[in-house]
């Protein structure tokens, strides 16, 4: 099993979810995050005090998938999340040792 973690533009969440669904990924967990990278942030001004904000809002999607699905899933995310402009985000993949579905106690790929 692998854990895929993708950081994408927030308004792409729905597209990514659908694309993943089509590859057979059944569940995922989403977090609102702030990203720092090449994409530039913005300036805020409050009564003459200027703040430059380097962080931009991003959405992090985590999905645990069986090894067999990993490549397809990555492909699906990249296609769905891409706009071609800076800040589209990243996909990171790491290995999972173990997974359990709390309700049933099922483990391994069964649990996903």
């Amino acid at each position: 099993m692998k854990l895929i973690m993708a950081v994408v533009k927030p308004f792409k969440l729905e597209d990514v979810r659908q694309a993943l669904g089509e590859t057979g990924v059944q569940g995922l967990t989403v977090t609102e995050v702030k990203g720092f990278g090449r994409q530039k942030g913005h300036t805020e001004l409050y009564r003459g005090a200027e703040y430059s904000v380097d962080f931009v809002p991003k959405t992090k999607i985590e999905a645990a998938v069986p090894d067999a699905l990993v490549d397809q899933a990555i492909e699906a995310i990249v296609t769905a999340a891409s706009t071609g402009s800076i800040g589209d985000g990243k996909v990171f993949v790491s290995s999972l040792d173990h997974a359990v579905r709390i309700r049933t106690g099922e483990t391994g790929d069964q649990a996903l």
Partner: protein
Amino acid sequence: MKFNISKKGLRLGIGSLLASAVPGIASAQDVLDSGDTAWMLTATALVLFMTIPGLSLFYAGMVRAKNALSVMMQCFAITCLMTVLWALYVYSLAFGNDIGGLVGDFSKAFMSGVGVDVVSGTIPETVFSIFQLTFAVITPALIVGAFAERMKFSAMLWFMTLWVTIVYAPIAHWVWGGGWLGGLGVLDFAGGTVVHINAGVAGLVAAIVLGKRRGYPRTAMKPSNLVLTMVGAGMLWVGWFGFNAGSELAADGVAGMAMAVTQIATAAAALTWMFLEWFNHGKPSALGLVSGAVAGLVAITPASGFVGPMGALVIGAASGLMCYLAVVKVKHALGYDDSLDAFGVHGIGGIVGAILTGVFVDASLGGAGLAEGATIVSQVGLQALGVVATIIYCGVVSFILLKVLDAVIGLRVNAEEEEEGLDLVLHDEQGYNLT
């Protein structure tokens, strides 16, 4: 047949052709009454309260968080801009000496002649003028709801400046300033046509000219803070007492009845919308309830000095029904994007109220009574004339103004800016930094 004994009625010369007896024209026999003045000072504060903070909260809660400040900023800036324009020349255009029933002259420009001692009816003319100003403030602010989340702030300022000059001031003059509609006997106690139909129609035109928000209607555009929308609705209701009962320009029996019918119509409209939604959708929503309340407030506005409690109940219920249909059914069917339903609530509610005023003013239906010689049918005809004249004039001129501005400076932010949100893009600010 008893005729309406409203002080305002007498002063406005409704039903007579004494178009010269308009407010703002101080005459020798005018004597200040401290009670009337006390009420009108209060009513002025109440109507300002409707716009800032009332309407700006009502609207800010309905847009997405990234645009919350932008609508508040628009309401607030409109308040300031209209105030200055009013003092400079708009008051005079609306309430200066009548020119051919169409518009006022410049005799009151720069508030000239509006001194400390000048009394209009039983109140200082300063108070009359500022009270009327608060109407000229809220009308453009209402339009903001139609083009929310996509219009450039600069274009908005230009549009409102031109609009209040060419559209609002003349129409206010037609109805209240000694102009042709008032002269014909069209009844609009507190601004059903001048304020609500006017704002609603301008909003509809703006929504169409600017086009839909990106992603509408596919993308979820959830209201960011309905808690604040509820607060704004409450403030609108409270402030509306100043709007309607204040339009009597005195603290008397007509003002009292105006307050009573305002309360009753609003409640009836709110419950109507709530039960319609409950029935159709399966659950009643808070936004539905308060939308109905605003619909009722709008519809009773033209009628408030003329009808009785049971007439108000019917007007409220009718308005709740018609606005519900307009907002929940018709808008989605037609597919235009009136972001916060300026037309669906203010335009439709104003029309319902204006027409039904012609019915329930009849003494046999509990109203103040029709003018000598008028019948319900003739009065409804007159009311319809007022409605149609407002729709056509406002619609056409607003359309031209917007098209010209679009060509010259552009009305809309670009797609990327719209995505990021107007607060950051236009104002370098964020509404909420709660964490």
